[in-house]
């Protein structure tokens, strides 16, 4: 088997005396989706912040393409090829799609001019390659739906040469249909050979696209499965707290009968 793009071994992070993350191991391979699942406060954000270079791990090993790394800034992670799409998407609503697409990395003409035509055409092509069909790249991003904005942000990361794409709860604020659309682009990015890290608390969104599932609970791994090892039902059960939920069910039943 080839070297994974990202491999973390027993990685851990403490903030002062708070253990935010401990003993977490997983891997991200090219053309695969690694899903990180967990409830609020499970350590999902801490893990992706380490991968994205926002924070640094203080235990364990973080290997990128087989070599141990420690990114000191998001810029460094980005330059290495790890792009992160946060929930706020880092888009400017009043600016057009293509201006957003190239923001911070504008195509230049004569050294200082903005190459608008190249920008528009490249944006259109990059979006089309991802199967996103926008009628007009001149429209403000604010007129797009939440799902579409997410897709533009994904397409931007793919276009600028990301090897690993980290998506922070991309489906959290979306309706069922829009979430489906976003998941399709996640699959699209995967099929283009990117390693994808998908953070979510919805097993129904994770299971169809995921190849690998890392479950976190209170900063510790609850389980690490490949798709062959786990069913959707089992994933859901574990996510929902599994045994705890059954106990709660018993309790509630007791309340009803008494």
């Amino acid at each position, binding site marked *: 088997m080839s070297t994974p793009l990202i491999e973390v071994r027993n990685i851990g992070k403490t903030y002062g005396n708070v253990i935010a993350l401990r003993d977490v191991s997983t891997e991200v391979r090219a053309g695969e989706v690694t899903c990180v699942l967990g409830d609020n406060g499970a350590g999902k954000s801490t893990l992706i912040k380490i991968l994205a270079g926002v924070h640094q791990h203080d235990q364990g090993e973080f290997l990128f393409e087989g070599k141990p790394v420690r990114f000191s800034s*998001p*810029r460094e992670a980005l330059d290495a090829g790890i792009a992160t799409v*946060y929930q*706020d*998407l*880092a*888009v*400017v*609503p*009043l*600016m057009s799609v293509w*201006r957003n697409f*190239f*923001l*911070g*990395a*504008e195509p*230049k003409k004569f050294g*200082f*001019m*903005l190459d*608008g035509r190249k920008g528009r055409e490249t944006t*259109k092509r990059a979006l*089309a390659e991802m*199967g*996103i*069909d*926008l*009628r*007009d790249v001149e*429209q*403000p991003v*604010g*007129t*797009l*739906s*939440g*799902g*579409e904005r997410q*897709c533009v942000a994904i397409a931007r990361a793919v276009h600028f040469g990301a090897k690993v794409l980290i998506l922070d709860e991309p489906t959290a604020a*979306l*309706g069922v*249909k*829009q979430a489906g*659309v976003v998941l399709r682009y996640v699959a699209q990015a995967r099929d283009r050979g990117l390693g994808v890290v998908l953070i979510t608390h919805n097993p129904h969104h994770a299971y169809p696209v995921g190849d690998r599932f890392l479950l976190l609970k209170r900063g510790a791994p609850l389980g690490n499965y490949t798709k062959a090892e786990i069913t959707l039902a089992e994933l859901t059960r574990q996510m929902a707290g599994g045994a705890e939920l059954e106990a709660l069910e018993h309790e509630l039943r007791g309340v009803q009968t008494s």
Partner: protein
Amino acid sequence: MSVTTPTSGSGQESDRATTSTKDERVASVSLTNRLIVRPEIGAALGALVVFLFFSVITEQFLTLSGVATWLDDASTLGIMAIAVALLMIGGEFDLSAGVMTASTALVTALLATQAGLNVWLALLLSLVFALAVGGFNGWLVMRTGLPSFIVTLGTFLALQGLNLGVTRLVTGTVQVSGMRATEGYESAGMLFASTFSIGGQPFRVSVLWWILLTVIAAFVLVKTRFGNWIFAVGGAPTSARAVGVPLVRTKILLFMTTAFAGWVVGSINILRFASVQANQGIGLELQFIIAAVVGGCLLTGGFGSAVGAAIGALIFGMARQGIVYAQWNSDWFMLFLGIMLLSAVLVNNALRRRAERVRR
């Protein structure tokens, strides 16, 4: 299903899979729809109405000398308005912009008349002073994270005090005059305060400055990466920073641009009138902001146009002089201004809602 955004709520979601139909769909967006998203369209219509109105009801408005008069009135206001507009698009205010036009004129005049410097050298030092104050405004706003409204209100008051205090200290009065006798006055005057003739009617060179700076500002805003950054830092600063836009540098440069415009106007004034009052320029800062808002700039930043601000200034100049030609009391100008501003804000608000409308 493909991801599309029908702009006019049509019900043909299913047949949008192919990319070849894309251009046809763009063409289907009506011309009015295209125009309405231009920030300056409201101002342009307003200017047309004001122009026609005064052309019809007064004799002098449309004569060459009339045109020269209201263009001159609009020009110095316009030079400031476009710089203030860029800053507003970048999400900040500069209340010290008005008094800056007096400060720069005073620095030039004091250096030339009291210190005996060549006017060109005095102008250069005055420019350095202006850029330093602008840079300080920007640095302080970025460093403290305080609203620029408050920070520049502070600079505004400080400059106002300095203008009066230093002038009285040096000259014993509250004005500096005697520029005509200074070395280099004639040649510097050619650049800032001469006239050019069209059809026998002299026009002020400030009109050319105004047009030139409008063209430059519009070009920078729409056609350069710096322009892209201006929109971004005004529209969503955190997002802009996240994708690598140099937020602090962009904003500081915008404050320095406003100060630069203040220097241009200050130089025009001192070389034209050869004297300057220490209390000049106070209250003008609001006029600049009004012109920018009438021209389509959002008070909250991220949207607007330099050409719009120039047109806003034009409306100002036309109305102010038109009211004189119509021999009305100038009190009516304020009423006009209020109505103009309110309608501009209402139109802007509707436009922004249109642009920010989210579809799920």
